[in-house]
């Protein structure tokens, strides 16, 4: 037990973030509870289920990120695993792709091991270079060429969505440059997830309140220009106030947070389009009120790697 907790070195900043998260959750729970007492409706019920799920997710996340880093790696790897499983359960893949799927799952431990060891270059090229060649070749080995292009395109791309993006979260934790000169990888991880999820919520809230002009009526009817712009601006502001977690200065913070907001929007719409093509509303019903795990981490899978590389660029050039 001691071993699990001995690495908890809650810095002053991280304690603050946990306190802020708790306050937001308590505030939201009370708000929707009072709202449901005054004026019950379906929207409030949905909000209450969502808030309950947020409690669980925040608890798991905070627990997984403050204990021993090895547990954090396993938790993030498991997140990738569930994401891949959700994608493959919806795709109607060919029967002979089964053996190749095994190698897709196998790339998760390899990728997280590379992140753990901090082999930066190998980590970066393992999926976009090696797996993009190996997986099509393994598909060829099955000997059936009917519909092989579909599998060749889908399987490597699913790795980019489910493994490559999310594993950048793991890379942040003990990457050498991110953990020296007063920079803390864990704080950056918290910052990224906080910003991404705040952006999701802000776009949702702005869209619900002021949404009029649809951006992509065919793909995602809930996304509006008002929600998008409001989300980007408020995420920039939130990022500015959460800046104590990062070594950046004010304009870098605002620019970075707004960029993250835009990337989060991209991930959201990409997954919306994919779901539309599958003909489903949610990827699964793993998280009550939110849908599947991929519905929650869709924006995270596209914000993690841009965030990492922008921060990396800023840190090594400054």
């Amino acid at each position, binding site marked *: 037990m001691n071993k699990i907790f001995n690495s908890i070195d809650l810095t002053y900043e991280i304690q603050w973030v946990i306190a802020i998260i708790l306050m937001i959750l308590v505030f939201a729970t009370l708000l929707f509870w009072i709202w449901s007492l005054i004026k019950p409706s379906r929207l409030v019920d949905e909000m209450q289920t969502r808030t309950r799920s947020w409690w669980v997710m925040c608890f798991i996340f905070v627990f997984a990120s403050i204990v021993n880093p090895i547990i954090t790696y396993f938790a993030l790897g498991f997140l990738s*695993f*569930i994401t891949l*499983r959700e994608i*493959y*359960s919806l795709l109607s893949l060919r029967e002979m792709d*089964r*053996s190749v*799927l095994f190698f897709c*799952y196998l790339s998760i431990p390899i990728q997280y091991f590379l992140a753990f060891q901090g082999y930066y270059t190998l980590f970066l090229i393992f999926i976009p270079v090696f797996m993009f060649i190996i997986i099509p070749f393994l598909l060829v080995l099955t000997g059936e060429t009917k519909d092989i292009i579909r599998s060749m395109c889908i399987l490597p791309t699913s790795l980019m969505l489910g493994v490559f993006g999310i594993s950048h979260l793991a890379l942040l934790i003990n990457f050498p440059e991110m953990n020296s000169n007063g920079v803390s990888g864990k704080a950056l991880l918290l910052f990224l997830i906080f910003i991404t999820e705040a952006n999701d919520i802000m776009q949702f809230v702005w869209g619900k309140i002021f949404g009029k002009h649809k951006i992509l009526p065919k793909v995602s009817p809930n996304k509006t220009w008002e929600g998008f712009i409001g989300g980007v601006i408020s995420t920039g502001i939130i990022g500015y106030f959460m800046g104590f977690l990062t070594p950046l200065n004010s304009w870098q913070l605002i620019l970075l947070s707004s960029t993250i907001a835009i990337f989060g929007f991209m991930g959201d719409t990409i997954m919306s389009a994919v779901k539309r093509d599958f003909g489903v509303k949610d990827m*699964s019903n793993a998280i009550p009120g939110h849908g599947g795990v991929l519905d929650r981490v869709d924006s995270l899978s596209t914000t993690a790697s841009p965030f990492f590389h922008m921060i990396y660029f800023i840190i090594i050039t400054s």
Partner: protein
Amino acid sequence: MKKIILVIIYSFFWRNFLKIFIGLKYINRKTLKNKKQFILIANHNSHMDTMAIMSAIPSRYIHKVHPIAAVDFFGGSLLNKILMRYLVNATLIKRDRNDTENDPIDAMDKMIKKYRSLILYPEGSRGSPGIMTNFKKGLAYLIQRNPNIKVIPVYLNNIYKTLPKGRKLIIPYNCSIEFGEPIQFRSFELDDILSDSEIALKKLMK
């Protein structure tokens, strides 16, 4: 001793393995609680089916639940027989009724008289996925002899995708196992029993 082995294998290992790794969801599992004796009937497409059902059974009486398997497929060697008996808790029966001394219905009937529960695949063997073949008559004979027993339909959704017929590699896939309510038979005529149980299982398929 046998109970401890079965509890470790199914309630501990398989249940967690299926839940966490494979992504199996148990739906309406509480219907099995507080039922002493029952017959579970399920669609059958894969060897994982038996593991999924056995892992759902409450550990208190798991040693009293016997999957029914065909002796010509599973009872090949002595080792196979011992494994089936102790690790799966299976009862091996013959597929045909030519031999009056080893009649499969009698064998199953005897188990029920000993207050044991059975897991039956009324389709006879692993069929092709998504297509339900006609139920074999053995189920109806068994119910005619024991009209008071509770028959619970179990629908296994997509479990065959984790281990299709003829494959050896288990691959994770989000699937579910759903338990229905005990079937109320219109009468204990042979055809009524068969059609009622088929309808009950097909109702869960939607």
